């Protein structure tokens, strides 16, 4: 290497070291100020006692973890159902021809309804309304009904994400498929949907991060999930710490999904850049 090059490298390294040092110092100062502001507030001792009580938090942990396990199972089952149902809805909305009008209209109406309906209201209507019909064979298990409500609402969102993906596939791809003699169904199945799903993966993962925490809402139907477990143990200890612990557990659950979403987005970006 020439001296000019060595000099450049040395200069860049010194700049990089300086940047790291500044970031470190500023983070420490910022955290210290924040901590000081919170702990010096007049109500801090009581807040610490009722929200950050280590002993109560530790004692509530087994029940919370058991509840979280229920959330995770609901999450996994719902995710699969939502993907299937959402994709089906999106595919139905692309069907052409007058025969399919009723299906298409139904799918459009479904998406309009469940995308607009607040999840909490849907949970109440499904969770208390369906069993109220007293039809034989209908479940009255709050976990199943809560899961059903989640699937109903999230399928509508996911269907729209898929539809955006389908519409993002360039018309020249459709022309190429048609020119080979593929019919509409084959074109969708083999050319459009595979490209659409790859493109919308980051957006879908983002929706699933949202679903992870909304799984906690099935507690309003009485399912003993992490949120409900926190509520129970808060009611017996007169302390809010179990809620904080449950919240941290949900955050911990979301972080891997969020990183996965970032990774998928980056992968799609690099692949599309190469196209």
């Amino acid at each position: 290497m020439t001296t000019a090059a060595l000099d450049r490298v040395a200069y860049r390294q010194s700049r990089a070291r300086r940047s790291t040092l500044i970031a470190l110092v500023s983070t420490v100062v910022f955290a210290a100020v924040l901590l000081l502001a919170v702990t010096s507030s007049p109500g801090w001792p009581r807040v610490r006692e009722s929200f950050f009580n280590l002993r109560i938090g530790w004692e509530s942990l087994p029940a919370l973890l058991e509840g979280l396990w229920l959330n995770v199972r609901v999450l996994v089952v719902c995710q699969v159902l939502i993907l299937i149902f959402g994709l089906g809805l999106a595919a139905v909305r692309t069907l052409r021809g007058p025969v399919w009008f009723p299906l298409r209209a139904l799918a459009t109406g479904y998406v309009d309804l469940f995308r607009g309906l607040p999840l909490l209201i849907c949970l109440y209507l499904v969770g208390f309304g369906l069993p109220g019909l007293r039809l034989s064979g209908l479940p009255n298990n709050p976990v199943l009904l809560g899961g059903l409500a989640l699937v109903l609402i999230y399928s509508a969102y996911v269907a729209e994400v898929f539809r955006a993906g389908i519409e993002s596939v360039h018309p020249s791809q459709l022309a190429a498929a048609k020119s080979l003699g593929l019919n509409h169904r084959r074109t969708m199945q083999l050319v459009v949907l595979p490209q659409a799903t790859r493109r919308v993966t980051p957006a879908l993962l983002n929706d699933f991060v949202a679903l992870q925490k909304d799984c906690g809402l099935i507690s309003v139907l009485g399912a003993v999930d992490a949120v409900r477990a926190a509520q129970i143990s808060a009611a017996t200890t007169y302390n809010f710490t179990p809620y904080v612990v449950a919240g941290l557990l949900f955050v911990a659950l979301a972080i891997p999904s969020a990183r996965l979403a970032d990774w998928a987005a980056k992968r799609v970006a690099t692949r599309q850049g190469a196209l």
Partner: protein
Amino acid sequence: MSTPVPVLSVRGLTKAYHDRPVLQGVDLDVAEHQVVVLIGASGSGKSTLLRCVDLLEDIDDGQILLDGRDISDPRIDADEARQAMGMVFQSFNLFPHMTALANVALAPRVVHGSSRRDAEDRGRELLDRVGLSSHAGAYPDKLSGGQQQRVAIARALAYEPRLLLLDEITSALDPELVGEVLTLVGELASTGRTIVMATHEMAFAREVADTVCFLDGGRIVESGSAADVLTNPREDRTRQFLQRFTGGR
């Protein structure tokens, strides 16, 4: 002996995008084993003509006959009619989520009922013929433009279409990659393929075309043998177009 029915027969084809006329009464006959080259300025209707023939666009008036059968009749199954034609596009339009081999084997497998193995064997053969046997497993984004276009040609040949439609297939290529694609088309022409191609490569047109058609304003202004149209054009508009093309060289 009766005259054989042309492979392609276009009668009075008219097409407008919204209110802008693109084709205004095009007549064209293409006999078997013939290579017809469409020339003309951008916007003269060459691509639209090819897209109409492949039933990728709805036409406003006229008829398109393939082996004497009216495929522009809305009552026929357009998907089935397209199976007799192969089209290659200016921008390749390979399926980016499939390997070169999967692109080529797709139509035989899905549309023409070949088994996966037969379709892939045939696909390998074709990739070999276009000089890409070592790239069978490559995805389109790993291939150069010229390689992608050769895969696209193999894909259009995979089901032995009666008619090959080539829409400015070298226009999106770097100059040094044009040759490999044109060489391949020349080989196809010499093996008796029936081809209609739109192109700006005049030297190539002179070499392979049985008939050259000059389009202007959505009409075929002049057509005839390559020597006649490209060397001794009858029409002023053809002469002006060719001068603009060769004037600078």
